[in-house]
Structures are given as structure tokens and as C-alpha cells.
């Protein structure tokens, strides 16, 4: 990624790329067969050891105190090989970011890798939702910090993997929702089997049923939307980084294949329509990389309007990734459709992550709402 320019970023870049090459490539097909094969727990433990799950947390909370550029860089590298791990890193980072925005670091679990397992470091949350759009939310009753939550909530990512979840719920009479931290081992919590989904198979989500479950309010009551909105601009960049990584992986595999596979008497790269498809894919990768790098730079510099730029980057890059990975399969022909190669997984994963943080059309409408409310479009 273009943002990997200083020594520390280059080191992170190399570390993430090495990790992906060593831990993710070879067993990708087996990892992706979860829940029908075991989860790649050894990989998760190693990812925790190198600090992937605590990147955004302050050092005082046991984190890496990294910025969005570092998170994006790592997600880009990881998702080239297997976006499932990217989804786990993303979901936990989203939960952390919302907790940080609520100034509730004190609620974070202890995370140091030597003393605590990766499961303790993770926090589940409905990372594919914008709770503000949802028709039905969990109901919360109570006062002060302790509330009792009831109701059902679908697709809470990582709920089957870890002990805590950050969940949106509405206190009766409030206009907007609040955020609560819930111990998933509490009585009254029913966690479904992993929801089998299109992509990110090894980043499982579960449906939850809560019956009077004790929960801790995060930040102030009724301010959940504000924390989500404050966290989400940064996380849009992380989502764009995942899409960028998937695209780059798709291009690399397609390019290498085109140099080896023969058709009509020579390597398929010699056919100009193949080169056109490759060029289209490469250009999408380049555009995504430049867009993401610039959006990260603006975010790190806290430039005016960077949030809108982050959203534009995510919406655009995620759409590019869906198109690019479709061509990525096409370039491998029948082989691209088979699980033995990485392309079909990238196609599924790209479409899956397009739904991160809410419905895509609603993200577009929200974008124009912000401009209408006075944010400068450029």
C-alpha cells in the first residue's frame, strides 16, 4: 500500500505479509470450510500474539496504539490471502473504537497476549449493521450502568468465539439506542450455531436470544448512535482496506495463472481480451490503493471532511472489489470457480464485506444527507 512509506509502516507491512504467507495461504481451503471443519484457532492465537486484535487500543489498555493507516495496511495484507481473519480483526476493532469513542476504556477486557487467550481479546458486535437503520432492536430496562436486555438480535459477528459482545439496545422512551457490553456466558443468553454465510466462513456470526440479561451501559444512555457515527468513519477505511486486499489477491492469482495456462497454442496472457480483463483488474487495484492511501492520510492528519472521504472510498472500493473479483474468477475459467484456487473465495468475501456497517444503498443516502447538512463534498 502506498501509505507504507515510513520505517515503522514498512515493518508492519512486511510483518503482516509474512504472517499471511506463512499462516493463511496453504490451509486457506480448509480454514474456509468452517463450521464443517475446525476453526483455525492456532492462527488466531498467533494473530493475537502479534497484536492484530488490539491494534487501535491505547498502550495503557494493552493495545498497539496504532492509527487507521496501520490497521488498513494490515487488513490489506491479510485479506489478499484470507479475508476471514480480516473480518475478525475488523469486528474487534469496530467494537474497540466505539468503546473508545464512549470513553469507556475501563470496560475493556484485559488483553495482554501472554496472559490471556485470543478469545478474551475479541469482542463480538453486529458489524454488518448500522443499528440506526434496524427496525427491531433489543430492549433495555434499568437505570444507571446496569440494565437488563431482552429480545433477539441477528448476526452478531464473533459471538460464538468470545465471551463478550457490544450490543445496541433501546431503553424504553429513549429516541435513540444505547450501547451495552454483555457477558455472553450469562444466564439468559442463547447463542445459535454459527450462521453459515456467503463469505468470511472463518469469521463466524451467531444469532442471539436474550432474556433479561444483565448488561453494562457503555458511555451515556441514548448516545449509541453518536458513538457508532464517530467510530464508523475510521472503520469505513478499514472496510475499504479489506476490499483492496481482496482485489490485489485476485489480481496476483489471475496474473500468475495467465502466464502459465495455455489456450489456442500459447499462454492466455497473449490473448488481448485476457490482457484487457487483467488491465481492468490492475487498474481497479491501483485506484483503490491510491484512494485508500489518500483517505488514510487525510484521516491521520484530521483534515476537514476526511470522514466523507473515508465513506466515499469505502463505498467505491467495495463496489470495485465485487466487479474485480468476478473478473478474477473469469480469468481462471473453470478453475477459478473451484475451491482449490483462491478466486471463488475472494468473490464471496468481496460481496460479504460490501455489507459491513449497513446496507450499501443506505450508506449512499447517508452520504448525501451529510452533504445536505452542510459537509463540504470536496
Amino acid at each position, binding site marked *: 500500500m502506498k501509505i507504507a512509506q515510513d520505517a515503522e509502516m514498512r515493518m508492519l507491512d512486511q510483518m503482516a505479509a509474512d504472517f499471511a504467507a506463512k499462516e493463511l495461504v496453504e490451509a486457506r481451503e480448509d480454514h474456509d470450510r468452517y463450521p464443517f471443519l475446525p476453526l483455525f484457532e492456532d492462527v488466531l492465537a498467533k494473530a493475537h500474539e502479534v497484536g492484530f486484535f488490539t491494534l487501535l487500543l491505547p498502550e495503557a489498555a494493552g493495545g498497539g496504539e496504532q492509527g487507521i493507516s496501520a490497521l488498513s495496511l494490515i487488513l490489506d495484507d491479510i485479506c489478499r490471502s484470507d479475508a476471514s481473519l480480516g473480518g475478525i480483526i475488523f469486528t474487534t476493532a469496530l467494537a474497540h473504537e466505539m468503546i473508545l469513542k464512549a470513553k469507556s476504556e475501563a470496560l475493556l477486557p484485559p488483553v495482554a497476549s501472554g496472559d490471556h487467550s485470543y478469545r478474551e481479546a475479541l469482542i463480538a458486535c453486529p458489524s454488518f449493521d448500522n443499528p440506526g437503520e434496524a427496525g427491531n432492536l433489543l430492549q433495555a430496562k434499568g437505570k444507571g450502568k446496569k440494565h437488563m436486555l431482552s429480545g433477539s438480535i441477528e448476526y452478531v459477528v464473533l459471538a460464538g468465539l468470545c465471551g463478550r459482545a457490544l450490543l445496541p439496545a433501546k431503553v424504553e422512551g429513549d429516541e435513540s439506542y444505547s450501547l451495552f457490553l454483555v457477558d455472553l456466558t450469562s444466564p439468559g443468553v442463547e447463542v445459535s450455531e454459527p450462521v453459515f454465510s456467503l463469505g468470511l466462513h472463518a469469521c463466524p456470526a451467531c444469532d442471539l436470544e436474550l432474556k433479561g440479561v444483565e448488561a453494562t451501559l457503555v458511555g451515556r444512555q441514548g448516545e449509541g448512535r453518536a458513538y457508532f457515527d464517530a467510530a464508523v468513519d475510521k472503520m469505513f477505511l478499514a472496510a475499504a482496506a479489506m476490499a483492496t486486499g481482496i482485489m490485489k489477491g485476485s489480481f496476483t492469482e489471475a496474473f500468475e495463472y495467465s502466464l502459465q495456462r495455455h489456450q489456442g497454442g500459447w499462454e492466455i496472457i497473449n490473448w488481448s481480451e485476457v490482457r484487457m480483463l487483467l488491465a481492468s483488474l490492475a487498474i481497479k487495484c491501483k485506484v483503490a490503493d491510491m484512494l485508500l492511501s489518500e483517505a488514510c492520510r487525510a484521516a491521520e492528519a484530521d483534515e476537514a471532511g476526511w470522514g466523507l472521504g473515508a465513506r466515499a472510498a469505502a463505498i467505491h472500493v467495495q463496489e470495485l472489489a465485487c466487479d474485480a473479483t468476478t473478473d478474477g474468477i473469469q480469468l481462471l475459467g473453470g478453475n477459478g*470457480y*473451484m475451491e482449490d484456487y483462491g478466486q471463488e473465495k475472494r468473490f464471496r468475501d468481496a460481496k460479504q464485506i460490501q455489507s459491513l456497517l449497513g446496507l450499501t444503498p443506505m450508506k449512499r443516502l447517508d452520504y448525501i444527507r451529510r452533504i445536505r447538512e452542510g459537509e463540504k463534498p470536496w
Partner: protein
Amino acid sequence: MKGDGAMGPNRSKALLEREPRFDDMAVSLLAMPRLPKAMVKETKQAVELARRFNDTVVRPYALELDRKKHEDPDFLPWEFVEEANRWGLYTLCIPTLFGGQGVNFPALSYVLEELGSACTGMSNLVGVHYLGVATLCASWNMRLMNKVMRDTAEGEKTGEPCLISLAITEPGAGTDVEEVDLVSKAQVACQAKKVKGGYVVNGRKIFISNGHLSYWHMLVCYEDLKNPQDTVIMLAIHNGMKGFSFGRQERKMGQKGCPASELIFEDCFVPDDLVCINPAQGKKLKRSMKETHMQVIDYIVAASRAGVGAFGVGVARGAYEEALRFAGETEVDGKLLINHEWAQCMLAEMYKNVAVGRLTYEEANYANDLLGMFKVLEWKPIFYYLKYMPKPIMDKVIQPFLNLGAVTWLFRKIYFDWQKETDYQCSSGWGSLSKFTATDIGVKNGQLALEMMGRAGLRHDRGAEKHLRDSKLLQIYEGTNQLNRLNLFKCLIGRDVPGARVFEE
């Protein structure tokens, strides 16, 4: 009609033959008056049957089968195939002449769309059998057509399904084997060597849809691997032949219910009476073996690509129907999704995609009715003769004639020697147009449905994500959509452009 009074018949003809040729752009208009009216009733009944089959068999089992294949990639859906056999789906479009029900072939596309709207994998479990049928028919070997298709009819009676597959793709050659200009330079490796009394076959075929589930396999291989375009040979292989075995099932992203099989041939002896067509037979035809080879391919793909178009429309419709259902029952931002203007426009776009895709496979089928594989069967006298001839007379009096060499000779005269170049250009061109248009639409609607549904659409138990996974294969098999664009160029564009060459970069 008013106009230029000086226009003579020659000038008039020349104007209509100018590109785009009137005969290519108004295929349905030309075909409709020539087609039997009874096709409409037959087609309605076939769609009704497909909808009942969907309600009873496909929808209750589609997600379960898909999940089962995720869990156990080697699972084979025999239960479904036996059910489809009981419902008569494998003989539905086999002509009565060969013991089938004789429903017109274009009706099959509507059936495949219906089944595909519920599950494209299961639609393939039915449709791919007819790819085998079409391949067999493209040899116009009436004796073998009678033998093999009557086995399917017999299998329906006994409850032991007898499906037919097409085995053409090889590990080193996919797109190449669908174009003679490419196959001449392809890395083909499946060879049939002439020996006394037959052929000995060695090699492997891969990605063979329904391979493990079929009894007969139409094997396309080559006598001389250095000269495949002139030495193509089609053999009818059946299970149990010595030297023939099944290899692995591929692990596909979608259409999981329909196995993609590896077929292995190790010194497999195939007797002469199972040769559908070979270069020796080709020598008796007007054109060279290379040209006949392309004619055979064009007959098959002109029909089968319309069928793939129907799969594309089916999957596009399935995705649209899931999105519509979701929009009607889900509240977003305080109101039902279906009452958001953007959602209404998105649904209209998806509906349009389905309708446009359907028009393409219909037009491709009209081309086949008029100029391609179906032209004899849908000629009114033959159509009604076959439809109303009592079955015992068909089976006992007419059928033995099919074993006469003269009948094969006559059909090869009609279908090979008398076929004009513009005939197969039109039907093959429209087949390709339908294939890539409708399958691109299938993928597009799959993507739009998931955009509309968000994370709900990602769940396997909602069914929408399966449509997207299933749709992608359609852009690849029966020739990639890139190859089909090139075939359209070759058939309908490049022929009239001096200096235009295809597959010669």
C-alpha cells in the same frame, strides 16, 4: 407498400441481406408462422409441471442439498434424480420417436428457467441431461440416438434413472475444445486409437456436469492429438465399460447439487457400434471434417447456450424474488423497504433484467426452430405426425427403421449437407448472445439482491446468497462469456468485414 417504384426484386433482396440481415434480426417474426400452434399448449403444461415440481421437490430440498454438499463434497443427490425421473423430467423433451414424451425442445428453456428460479443446481441436474441429448443428436446417428434415448425412457419405467452427459472438457483444454480454430493448437490429451472392431480410449475429462449421475456419456475425443480439428470423434460410453471409471468430484463454489466429475479412460475399448460420428463417416459428407466438426459444435451450443441463457434468467429471477420478498417484509429507516423509491427502482431494474434475458433465449430458440437442431421436429407435418401417432405403432412399426443406415444418411443430408452457412451463423450467434447476456444478468441480479438485503442476504438460510454463487458458473461453462462474445463476432459481425479474423492474434 408505397416506396421506390423502380426497386426490383434483386435490389430488394440486397437491401434485406445488408447487415444486420433481416433474417437475423427478425428471427421470431419469421419463425412464428411456421411453428405448430400446439407448442403453446405444450409449453404452458410444461411450465405448470415445473412449478409443481418446484413447490413439491425443489424448494423444500434446495438449501438442504446445498448445505449437505458443503459438509460432504462427495455426496451425490440420487434421491433428487430419482424424483425428477419419477416426474418424467428426463424424457419430457425426448421425441416420441425415441420413446420420450415429445414436448417441444424450446419448452425446456422455460422449464429450466422455472427450476433455476428455485435452484440452479437442481435445474442443471435436469438440464445437463439434455446437453447430452443435444450432443448425441448433433451426430445425427439415428441408430444410436434411438438406442441411448430409449434407455432413458426405459429408466423412467423401471425407476432407475438413465441420464446422458457430455464429456468434452480436458484438464489442459476448456475453451479450446469449443472452437475448431482453437482446438488445432490446444493441449488435448484424450485420444481414441483405431483398433480392430472399435477404438481404444485413453485420457481424462474434467468438469463433466452430472458425470457421476449419468449412465451414458457422449465422449468427444480425437484420433490424432496433433490434428484434433480433423480427427474428432464422438463415442457413446456407458457405465461399466472396462477401462472407464469416475475420478473426483470438483469442489465448486455454487451449483453444488450438480456434480462436476472427472471421467478417466484407461485403455477403454469402445466397439464400432458405439461410434456416434468419426472422420471415416465425415468423409461421406459434403464438407471437410474440420467444417463438420464445427457444425456439430454449433448445433450443440446453439441449443445448449439458449438453455444456459434460461439458467441465467432463472437465477436472476430467483434473486429478484428473494429481494422482493425481503423488501415487502423488512422495515428500514422507519418504513417498509418496498416503499423506498430507490428500492422500487432497483426491483424494476431486476425485473427488466429477467425479462430481457428471457427474450434472448426465446429468440435463440426461434433460430433453432427455424434453422438449427429443432427444424425438422417443429416442421408442422412432422410435429403433428409424431404428436398423434399412437405409441404402439411408433414403437413397433416406425422404430425399427431408425436402425437403417439410410435414415442416418437422410438426416445427415438435411442437417449437414443442406445446412447453409448463414443458418448456423444465425443460430450459433443467437445462442452465444443469449448465453452471455442472460448469464451476465444472472450475476448482476445476484449482486443487486444482496445489496438490497444487506447482511440478511448473506445468510445461507435466506437463499439469496446461493443464487449469487450459483450464477457465477453460468458465465464460465458452455464457453466462457468471452468466447461467446467472440463467437457472436465470428457468426454475426466479422463475416461481413473484409480482413476480419477471429482467434488469430
